[in-house]
């Protein structure tokens, strides 16, 4: 079990690294909708794998512990014999699992609060568009049932009607496609596996491009969408203070414009398929590891009570008591 388990860990780490390395390319070049789904689902699968492996170690550690084995009616001896991983490694897996649990709760709490705040605010507005008077120019989608588009009056006044159509179609595409859930999925996945953090920038770009493509379909003019992004950037850009971490997301605007002005993309089957394979292969390995663990405990359950363990004084007393009522 030890060699194959370590191989799986190595394989899973390598897959995550490959996934993260390819994800910006997929976000930039693959069709935006396909890229978004591949990135969000792939991140979730890899996050599940990253939980499954420490989970196996945790189960193997606690399965050896007498009181737990007694409660579960399996033989702690058999588990101890068959698990050849050093206890230190098992303990490390348990620590990793606990850390993942804490990070997951923290991220779910933060993202969940942002989403529920958005839903509450969206419910309070009557119209499809909420306008912010006397605010710095901005426009964003407020997810909810139904979601709303929020725009500053200053921005609307700076745009011509066809540019307004582009901006509204873009934000509506975020709402219709529930893009916030794709972002939340990658955010949760990267909480479980910090290696996946760079995928958050990729899903951000992919969902923005997805909305750009939908807007281009609605207005029937890709160049108009590109020019609108440029115009909005000039209107908002002067006003938005930039924090160092968001500056990294800034070039995404130029990438979106480039993608809109470039000739239509092919399906990029190979690139996207590679990403999917990188997520699915370690998933197969994880399922196999979980299956083996399950087999081990089934055997340990069958072995419970059949093997003659060294009798402790307590059991010998109770045996005597039952022999002589």
């Amino acid at each position, binding site marked *: 079990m030890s060699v194959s388990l370590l191989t799986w860990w190595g394989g899973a780490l390598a897959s995550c690294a490959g996934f993260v390395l390819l994800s910006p390319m997929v976000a930039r070049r693959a069709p935006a909708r396909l890229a978004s789904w591949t990135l969000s689902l792939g991140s979730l699968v890899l996050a599940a794998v990253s939980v499954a492996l420490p989970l196996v170690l945790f189960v193997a550690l606690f399965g050896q512990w007498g009181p737990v084995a007694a409660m579960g009616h399996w033989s702690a001896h058999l588990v101890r014999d068959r698990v050849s991983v050093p206890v230190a490694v098992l303990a490390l897996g348990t620590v990793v699992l606990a850390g993942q649990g804490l990070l997951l709760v923290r991220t779910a709490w933060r993202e969940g609060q942002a989403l529920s705040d958005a839903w509450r605010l969206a419910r309070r507005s009557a*119209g499809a568009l*909420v306008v*912010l008077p006397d605010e710095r120019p901005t426009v964003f989608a407020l997810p909810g049932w139904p979601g709303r588009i929020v725009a500053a009056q200053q921005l*609307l*006044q700076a745009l011509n009607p066809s540019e307004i159509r582009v901006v509204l179609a873009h934000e509506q595409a975020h709402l219709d496609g529930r893009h*916030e859930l794709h972002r*939340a999925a990658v955010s949760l996945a990267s909480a479980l596996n910090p290696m996946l953090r760079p995928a958050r920038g990729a899903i951000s770009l992919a969902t923005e491009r997805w909305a750009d493509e939908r807007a281009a379909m609605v207005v029937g003019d890709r160049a108009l969408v590109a020019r609108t992004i*440029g115009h909005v950037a000039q209107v908002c850009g002067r006003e938005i203070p*930039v924090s160092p971490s*968001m500056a990294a997301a800034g070039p995404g605007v130029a990438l979106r414009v480039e993608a809109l002005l470039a000739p239509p993309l092919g399906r990029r089957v190979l690139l996207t398929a590679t990403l999917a394979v990188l997520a699915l292969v370690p998933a197969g390995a994880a399922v196999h590891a979980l299956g083996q663990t399950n087999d081990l405990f089934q055997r340990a359950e069958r072995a419970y009570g059949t093997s003659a363990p060294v009798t402790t004084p307590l059991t010998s007393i109770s045996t005597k008591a039952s022999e002589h009522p």
Partner: protein
Amino acid sequence: MDRRASGRLEAEVLAVLWASPEPVSAEEVRRRLGGGLAHTTVSTILARLHAKGAVIRELVSRNYVYRPVLDEAGLVAGRMRALLEDQRDRVGVLSQFVAGLDRRALEALRRALEGDGGR
């Protein structure tokens, strides 16, 4: 016209009203929206917005002109802005149309648009 398309038009009509410094007639809204919309479509949407209290209208030389009204959600504007700023330092679930542009990003954007050949 399905519900989604109607909601989209409603937002566009509201945006046109908010973008205009003075009250606008239905015909002017139709002209600014472009895209060959029927006059009745625009009138229907304006009537619905009026019924919801999202716009007010007044008679000017036997024609209605429309002006948008700040609704309750607009009054919680500060909270929406706070919601967005709160997650500025990370990649959150919400996203602005364009966000976090520094001079380098604006320069890259200008280059990309110039590659368009000034169409």
